[in-house]
């Protein structure tokens, strides 16, 4: 599996560390219902069989966080963006 790092180009997945689902968002701890929202954020995942947006860290490269679009059934990668440029 090779990941197209927007900064470094196509690199072996070995250079990256995996964090997981990139679509979960840290809730506001001061908002009402924060306890439930944090439970969902920390523990619950869609875990889809198919298209998945996920966070990888290019530790052996440019040290950027990258959001990769990958199919979990085939491992085919559709694209990657720098996490800081992904609009929430």
């Amino acid at each position: 599996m090779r990941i197209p790092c927007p900064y470094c180009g196509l690199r072996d997945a070995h250079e990256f560390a995996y964090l997981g689902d990139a679509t979960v968002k840290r809730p506001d701890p001061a908002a009402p219902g924060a306890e439930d929202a944090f439970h969902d954020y920390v523990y619950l995942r869609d875990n889809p069989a198919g298209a998945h947006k996920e966070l990888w860290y290019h530790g052996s490269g440019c040290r950027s966080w990258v959001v990769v679009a990958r199919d979990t059934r085939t491992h085919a990668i559709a694209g990657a963006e720098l996490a800081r440029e992904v609009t929430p």
Partner: protein
Amino acid sequence: MRYSVLSLLANALTGQKSWKPAWRDAAPKPSYDVIIVGGGGHGLATAYYLAKEHGIRNVAVIEKGWIGSGNAGRNTTIIRSNYLLPGNEPFYEWSMKLWEGLEQDVNYNSMVSQRGVLNLCHTDAQRDAYARRANSMRMSGADSELLDQDGVRAMYPFLDFENARFPVKGGLLQRRGGTARHDAVVWGYARAADRLGVDIVQNCEVTGFIRDAQGAVVGVETNRGPIRAGKVGLAVAGSTSRLTAKLDMRLPIESHVLQAFVSEGLKPLIDGVITFGAGHFYISQSDKGGLVFGGDIDGYNSYAQRGNLPVVEDVAESGMALIPRIGRVRLLRSWGGVMDMSMDGSPIIDKTPIPGLYLNAGWCYGGFKATPASGWCFAWTLAKDAPHARNAAMRLDRFRTGHLIDEKGVGAQPNLH
């Protein structure tokens, strides 16, 4: 027919003509008391104990492929009860006790072999941690022994004891641990369940759920038509989230791929199970002579049932660091299975918030050893509508209440468990 020396002799003398299929190829009936989705080890064991322990025999196991085509037929067959915590060690020790009587119980040779599981330690801190684990195991009635370096040398003189980075200093040995023949476990439970009246329905994929007006699950939709049920239990391992998504239920589970490897057949070399404590590598030798080994999960979400090369390299390097002599052995096969990695690394055997729906999931890479106890406890939970003491900690809501069973203490990061 009961399998025995007599039935073996009788068939030998009569041209092996009176053997019958080990289970019926059942077609689905319109309704059952209980439907178990998933014909892996856990689903079949659950059906067997429902019939045997609770007298609930109007039961179907619904399997989308053939039984044992999932992780039950892909694992590296290690059984052990060397866990640490009050929430899991009594459960795994109960599983070990069931393994010890399994063949007589189901009248099938599952080739349970208590050849010993040895976890190596390489630092003083690791030895201390193993001493704590060994004591915790004994408190739950399991056996455990701490070995010093000479003790390990006597068992496996060929390890790289003086490795510059990871010298072998000793190990934690569970002599009652070992291996079992994974396919035979599946077939044995299937045959025993079938003999008690359970329908084993293969090539039948559950595609959705039938709900009543209150939202309770009262059956399943399949590619062979709807089947109604009093209760539905899910035991689909790596496919759990795919099914619960149809109920808009999100789970504390990610599906990951785990690879394993087998070498060409060799003369007897390793008579137990050895795990490397400084990297991700474990090894045993099958009765056919192949070295069976593996390491860590690949570490990213996957439903592909195949992994990537970095893990292959990592496993090979770890193997060489521990047992240099396997370097000339040729690899025969490698494969992958889809693991239901939970957020604390421990399983879930529980009712769900949806009436009629019960959940058995989150087995990570270690559910084969759990097969008997998982079936036993899930059957109890289904029959009594409440968990047994042995699975009382394996609740679905523990992630909300904070009562995690985090054996490694690494937090909500499935690829670290």
